[in-house]
Structures are given as structure tokens and as C-alpha cells.
């Protein structure tokens, strides 16, 4: 259900400045909607007790000074692997129980400095490891379109929050598809920018060379403004680039659909793709051609090794990054361990869930003596080939179109017994992370079962503005409905009581 106040960020700013509503009214609306729906959807792990106070202060200051940014008073939700000073950060893991952050992630701090209001922190697969949000220590998030289906993952809570109208904007992190796949499953827009566009400082690290932060939104222009607000150099993350993030706004304005060359890799429309998704994308390809863009056949011959490479590199980095969770300085610690070694080993065994342990073990193995050459180093070389395929393809086209996910949102428990089949749900998204490229998922309507379908656009480095312009066009061709979620009826989609 759309909120009764505004349709986009710029519409919010106008309504706010014209006094059509107060920031407090808007904040109360989203918080009360969250309160009534969270029991059935399990989207939020915590809400911000200071949100209303902050809204009042912003209203008071607005009366005196006026607003300097569209984000002034704008409500957002943040995945619970972003640090916010004074707030719990759980990463949906038992091992961080009781942990309170001592700093704020740069991305969140930049939105806060413009006046945004964080409403709450959203559910995820533990440490962002998963594709369904079923790996959360706090139970899974339900897909607002059908509560028997997963919302995707790992940023399932943030995607569901925007789809269910609990917030107009949310933040997620994407290491192998963790923004784009849940965006597709929940019928919202999600973008993972170029590696280095947004500071990762304060994002709890999973795989540092692949992790990127990005927004979920209903409008391409809202996602664009969020990227511009969060992007740019940060001395706390030396992998951030010097480029001026406002270049994305310029590219968004100047990109034209007529003449645009859209690359179609046959590899990603073949075997393993659900026919209903192939049909939706076929219609989209026709519509884009009707709008004047041109299809170009491209080939990404090494992309079929993306999953192989990812599950060696990402797990290797994770095994190192997660070694800091040892029960010494914060979070969970087992009671009365026999000795120091037992304290580490038992704390980690009981604090981490299955998928996290599986990945730590796999990564440790890939880096261990005798296997590093055959696994980790080989994977790094194939990563170079995957990157090379993309650079070659972008000599012929402006961006590449693929499905976001090979299947529609699956049922709870469908893939939890078989880790490998869960991994394969990231087959189309994972290579953009391995190549450091920007990519987004935009809804293209519903499949035959009434479940959302996403189209995936991958662009050359720093092409976020162009990708979002095409996503904006796609949204105008396929106006996306929102699900009706009714409080207290976890299994139903009747008209909600809030209007």
C-alpha cells in the first residue's frame, strides 16, 4: 500500500515545505504501520525510540530555517549490519547479543547529517550470508506478497520494509546479490553501486573486496538521490573513489533510451531459468526495443563459474573477517569455559548459526596450506577472466540485461536443506560483485502466480546514473502495484486498515 503523504522523495520535500504534513505525522505513520505489521512480517529487529523526538526537533527547526535537503525528515530503515552509535547491531547473530555500537556507519551518518530519520534496523541472513533471510537468529522475514514465500536475502528485511510500506527507503548491503535478489523477490528497486562508490566504514565486514552498500526504493530517482547523498570519498574507507557522486545525477538527466545498446548474454537466458520469468523479460525486451533501444548479443563465457569463484573468495575473506568474533571484547561468551581455547571455540560454535560456520570452514579450507593454490589463487585468476568478459562486452553495449533471479520467490524451507541449491539462486547477480560493477534490479510486474519478477541491469564502472535512468523507463512501462498487507492476518493480503 502506498503511503497517504507522498509518492517520491521530491514529492515528500514539496509536501513538507508546503506544510501539507509535518515530519512528525509522517514518522508516526510509518512507525505505527511497522508496529502493527511487524508481528506478521518480522521485518524489523529494532525500532528507534528517538525517532519521534527527532521528528519534532526537525519540525521545530524547519519552522525557523527551512530545509536544506530533500532528505530532511525523510524516514529510512537500515539493515542490521550497519553500525549506529548507541544502537544495537546484531547482524541477526546470537554472537552479537547485547552489543551496542560505538560509531555510526559513514553511509548512515551522511543521510543523518542531511536530516533523515532512521526508523529501525531490519532483519537479514546472519552476517549477510544467505539468499532468503531464513538464516536469521531472529526468525525469517515474510515476503509481503505472499507470507509463505521468502523475501530473498540477505537484505530481506530492507526489501520487505519498502514493499510493505514500512519505510519509503531502506539500506542494504550486497556481496553476491543481497540487495538485488530480495528487491526482485519483493517487487521493489534495489541497486548495488560500483565498488568504491559508497564507503563501507561501519558496515560489518563479510567479504571486504565484494561488499557494497545500496538503497531500496520505489522510484529510480529516490535511489539516485540516496546514492548521491551517501557516495564519495571517505578517509575511513580507502577503497572509496574520489569521483564526485553528483555525476550520477548528470548521467541520469542526459541518458536517452533511443539508440541505447542493451547487451543480451545468451548464457543468462538459457537452461535453469524459470519460463514465467523468461516470458516477462521477453516482453520487456520488446518494449525497450519499441522505445528505441537496440539489442546487442554479447557473451560472458566465464560467468558460469561465478558461483564457484564466489564461494571460494567470499568465504576466504569471511573466515578472516569473522575471526574477530571471539567472545573477548563484546557480544556473547559461553559461561565458565575450561580454558581460553575452549572459550573461543565454544563461543563461536554456539554464537554462529549453521551457514556462517559452513562458510568459515570453507574459507579456512580454501586458504589452508596445500590447498591455497588450487582453490583461492585459482579463483582469483578466474575472477580476472570474468571481469575481462564484461569489459569486452561493454565495448559493444552500454549495459547488460539479465534476469535477477532464476526462479520466483521460493517457499520457506525449500532450499535450506541443500546449501548448494541456495547458492545457485545468486547465479545472475554474483558476477557483478566479482567484477566490481554497478547493477540493479527493477520490477517488471508479476508472474503467473502473482509473484514479483525483477529485471537485472549491469553497467560499466560508474554508470549508476545511466542504469537508473533505464530503470526509471522500465518502471514507467511496468507500473508496479504494491501488496496489501493486513495486520494480524499473516496469511492474507486483504486491504489494510490504515489509509
Amino acid at each position, binding site marked *: 500500500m502506498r503511503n497517504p503523504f507522498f509518492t517520491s522523495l521530491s514529492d515528500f520535500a514539496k509536501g513538507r515545505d508546503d506544510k501539507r504534513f509535518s515530519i512528525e505525522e509522517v514518522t508516526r505513520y510509518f512507525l505505527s504501520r511497522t508496529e502493527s505489521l511487524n508481528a506478521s512480517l518480522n521485518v524489523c529487529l529494532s525500532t528507534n525510540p528517538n525517532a519521534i523526538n527527532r521528528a519534532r526537533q526537525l519540525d521545530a527547526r524547519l519552522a525557523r530555517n527551512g530545509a536544506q535537503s530533500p532528505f530532511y525528515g525523510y524516514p529510512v530503515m537500515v539493515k542490521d549490519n550497519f553500525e549506529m552509535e548507541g544502537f544495537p547491531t546484531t547482524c541477526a547473530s546470537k554472537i552479537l547479543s547485547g552489543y551496542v555500537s560505538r560509531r555510526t556507519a559513514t553511509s548512515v551518518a551522511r543521510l543523518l547529517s542531511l536530516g533523515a530519520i532512521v526508523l529501525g534496523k531490519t532483519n537479514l541472513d546472519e552476517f549477510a550470508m544467505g539468499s532468503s533471510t531464513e538464516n536469521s537468529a531472529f526468525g525469517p522475514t515474510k515476503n509481503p506478497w505472499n507470507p509463505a514465500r521468502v523475501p530473498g536475502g540477505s537484505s530481506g528485511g530492507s526489501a520487505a520494509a519498502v514493499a510493505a510500506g514500512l519505510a519509503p527507503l531502506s539500506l542494504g548491503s550486497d556481496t553476491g546479490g543481497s540487495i538485488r535478489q530480495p528487491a526482485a523477490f519483493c517487487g521493489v528497486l534495489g541497486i548495488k553501486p560500483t565498488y568504491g562508490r559508497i564507503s563501507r566504514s561501519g558496515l560489518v565486514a563479510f567479504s571486504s573486496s565484494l561488499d557494497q552498500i545500496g538503497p531500496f526504493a520505489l522510484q529510480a530517482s529516490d535511489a539516485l538521490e540516496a546514492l548521491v547523498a551517501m557516495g564519495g570519498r571517505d578517509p575511513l574507507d580507502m577503497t572509496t573513489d574520489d569521483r564526485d557522486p553528483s555525476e550520477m545525477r548528470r548521467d541520469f538527466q542526459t541518458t536517452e533510451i533511443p539508440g541505447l545498446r542493451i547487451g543480451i548474454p545468451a548464457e543468462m537466458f538459457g537452461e535453469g531459468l524459470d519460463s514465467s520469468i523468461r516470458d516477462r523479460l521477453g516482453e520487456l525486451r520488446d518494449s525497450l526495443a519499441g522505445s528505441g533501444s537496440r539489442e546487442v548479443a554479447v557473451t560472458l563465457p566465464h560467468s558460469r563459474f561465478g558461483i564457484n569463484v564466489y*564461494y571460494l573468495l567470499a568465504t576466504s575473506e569471511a573466515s578472516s573477517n569473522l575471526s574477530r568474533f571471539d567472545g573477548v571484547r563484546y557480544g556473547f561468551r559461553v559461561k565458565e569455559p575450561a580454558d581460553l581455547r575452549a572459550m573461543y571455540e565454544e563461543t563461536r560454535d554456539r554464537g*554462529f548459526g549453521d551457514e556462517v560456520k559452513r562458510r568459515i570452514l570453507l574459507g579456512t579450507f580454501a586458504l589452508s596450506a596445500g590447498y591455497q593454490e588450487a582453490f583461492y589463487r585459482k579463483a582469483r585468476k578466474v575472477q580476472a577472466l570474468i571481469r575481462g568478459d564484461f569489459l569486452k562486452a561493454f565495448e559493444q553495449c552500454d549495459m547488460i540485461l539479465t534476469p535477477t533471479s532464476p526462479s520466483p520467490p521460493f517457499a520457506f524451507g525449500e532450499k535450506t536443506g541443500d546449501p*548448494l541449491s541456495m547458492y545457485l539462486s545468486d547465479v545472475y547477480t554474483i558476477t557483478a560483485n566479482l567484477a566490481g560493477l554497478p547493477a540493479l534490479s527493477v520490477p517488471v510486474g508479476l508472474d503467473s502466480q502473482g509473484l514479483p519478477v525483477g529485471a537485472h541491469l549491469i553497467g560499466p564502472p560508474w554508470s549508476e546514473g545511466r542504469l537508473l535512468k533505464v530503470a526509471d523507463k522500465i518502471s514507467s512501462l511496468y507500473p508496479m502495484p504494491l501488496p496489501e498487507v493486513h495486520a494480524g492476518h499473516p496469511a492474507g493480503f486483504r486491504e489494510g486498515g490504515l489509509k
Partner: protein
Amino acid sequence: MNLSRSDVLHVARLSALALSEAEVARMTSELSAILNYVEGLATVDISGVAEAGETLAPTPLAPDIPAPSLPTEGALAGAPDRSGAFFQVPRILEEGR
């Protein structure tokens, strides 16, 4: 490749994870299945290919400028166990040694 029970125990020790018997059995089969899949990489010809850099461009180093860091009380605020200004952990050395 298939991992043996002792391979898994070795990797679990390197990972500082005390796996239960049931976990060792499950991880042995699950990790073997995953490794058998990722080993598909063996079919890729990588002769003459250099490893990918971690990022698109080389990462510059941060200037080395001293700055205040987390104060002691802040650092200890979440400690499961502390003793004065220190984190407390189980004894490592026996008394008198």
C-alpha cells in the same frame, strides 16, 4: 574432492570452532558437496592469466596521522568480563610458571 572427518576437524580447529559430533558429520558431507561443485574451476584454462586485483584501481594508503581512538571505558562497555581497565579471559598460564 571429498573431505574426511579428520580434514573437517583440522579445519574446525584452524577456524576456532568446537563442532559437535553431529555437526562434524553434516559439515563433512555438505562441504564435500560444495567443494565438488567449486572444483568445476579445474576445467578453466588459466595459463598466462594474472590474479584479479582486489579492486578496480589500486587502493591508496591512508596518511599516517595520529588521532584519538576509542576511550578505555567505551572499549570496555560491551565486555563480557572485565577486570579494571582490561578485558578478562580465562587464565592462560598456570600459577607459578
